[in-house]
């Protein structure tokens, strides 16, 4: 069982990203995934999070994730907004983050104790491919870079979700991100 937490800002499409990831692993890889979205008083720009659980078998658990195996951060400034992305972090919890700024990466490593960090400038790749800085598709590509999901499954799920034209662009952003993602 893999427990994942997505952190981002309202408008970055993190709930959509969680659904696309769950489709990618459930429909295209024969596994099981559930999303546990946390709906609150959201507005554009406010911190939001959503949870996903993935397993090879049917999932019984139906509550929020408190001890994530993977933390995905769509916006590096989230830590300035009273959000502790290391909450419930275990020794080997992976961080996948949308940044290529070394100082930021050092801060996440040193202040939050993430020992394994995957990073990519997903916003830049989103702007290049879809013309808008919505990094969710690209971040799913980065997540594929960690090996928990196949990039082909992500591309298929993105195309199914966004339709032909927008889907292709998002899939390209994901593929680029998958290629550019690096371990810090």
């Amino acid at each position, binding site marked *: 069982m893999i427990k994942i937490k997505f952190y981002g800002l309202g408008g970055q499409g993190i709930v959509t990203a969680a*659904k696309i990831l769950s489709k990618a692993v459930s429909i295209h890889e024969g596994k099981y995934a559930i999303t546990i979205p*946390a709906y609150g008083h959201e507005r554009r720009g406010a911190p939001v999070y959503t949870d996903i659980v993935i397993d090879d078998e049917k999932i019984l658990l*139906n*509550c929020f994730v408190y001890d994530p195996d993977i933390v995905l951060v769509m916006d590096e400034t989230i830590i300035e907004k009273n959000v502790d992305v290391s909450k419930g972090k275990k020794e080997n919890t992976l961080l996948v983050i949308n940044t290529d700024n070394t100082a930021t990466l050092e801060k996440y490593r040193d202040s939050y104790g993430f020992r394994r960090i995957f990073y990519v400038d997903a916003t830049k790749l989103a702007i290049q491919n879809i013309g808008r800085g919505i990094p969710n598709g690209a971040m799913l590509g980065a997540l594929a870079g960690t090996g928990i999901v196949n990039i082909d499954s992500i591309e298929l799920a993105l195309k199914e979700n966004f339709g032909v034209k927008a889907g292709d662009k998002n899939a390209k952003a994901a593929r680029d991100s998958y290629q550019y993602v690096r371990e810090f």
Partner: protein
Amino acid sequence: MTFKMLDGNAAAVEGMQLARVGVISAYPITPQSAIAEKLSEMVDNDQIDAKYIRVESEHTAMSAAIGAQLTGVRAATATSSVGLALMHEVLGVASGCRVPIVMPVVNRALVSPWSLWCDHQDAMAERDSGWLQFYSENVQDVLDLMLMAYRVAEDEEILLPAMVCLDGFFLSHSMQKVECPDQAKVDSFLGKYTAKNTHLNPKDPMFINDLTSSDEFTEMRYQQKVAFDNALRIIPRVQAEFYETFGRRLNLVEEYRTEDAEVVLVTLGSMSGTAKHVVNTLRAKGLKVGILKIVSFRPFPDELVRTALRGKKVVGVLDRSAGLGAEGGPVWLETTSALKGTATEVKSYIGGLGGRDIPEATIEKIFAELLEQYNNHPIENTTWIDLKENPLDIRQVDKLVQNL
């Protein structure tokens, strides 16, 4: 049979579409809105051959659904929380006139405090409304219980409307992998709907819901009571046929690792999945714990509950509604009543109110208390299991002012 990724709201819609509903009158309310919206889209795209009636309230949504169903079609509506409360008056008309409407209820707290989030109080407040009530553990359950509910509600020996309850957000907005049956199989399982007993037909006019004196009222109520008794007998037959047709087992109550369990927790709704997960974790550590999941709250299968819990020394019940003014929550009351005259100690727990999560830790805490009790350490159980510290200080204006 195909796999689809659906959230609870979409699964409810899938069930209505497969049942070929002919009239839809729904009023949107969080967290049910996606049901009302999706149905309207499907009517617009000709994915459902139905008439969509725009209504100004839930009271009218139910009124229109009753009238529509009496003409001989399956009518669809869905609601939540205060929407269900606003339907209250007309819920009794549907059940009293024996109109077997199937309605998803997306469980959400009643006000006040104002809340949008999961709590069973809305449905519990309607537990004596004469409606059948089935509670879903996961999104697959939402679809399966919808299909089962049509068959049960419409059975000539039952003819009672049914609520299929799904936890707000934890199910309504949780996307899960769902096996969806073929239309042809559902058609043969459900059959075509015809209005039985009461109907609206200009060629055969009749009085429906006319003033009934004390000369007949008691007998008509008694007919409803008999219908609930019949439901307890007929539901297992429908579930057996459901298994033959769709290959998935449904129950009135589900025993999960209870057989040799020292203590059992009774659950309702989406908390049941997390509780089963915790049971597996604790079993791996050698602790003999089990779950009894209530699927049908109305009718309440008291005999099955009694049998499942026979000989257990300690049982806990976790209610997701406060049961204000009573000794315990509504599920606890029913369980206690089912176990009357036995030596079983039934502990009441209340938690997960107004959207508060029921994580593994909460279930573990309950099991720890129950096991302590089992091992001959009489304890005062923590009824309000997930209460924060100093609850009486929350929003106490005087105290806040003093602290300034």
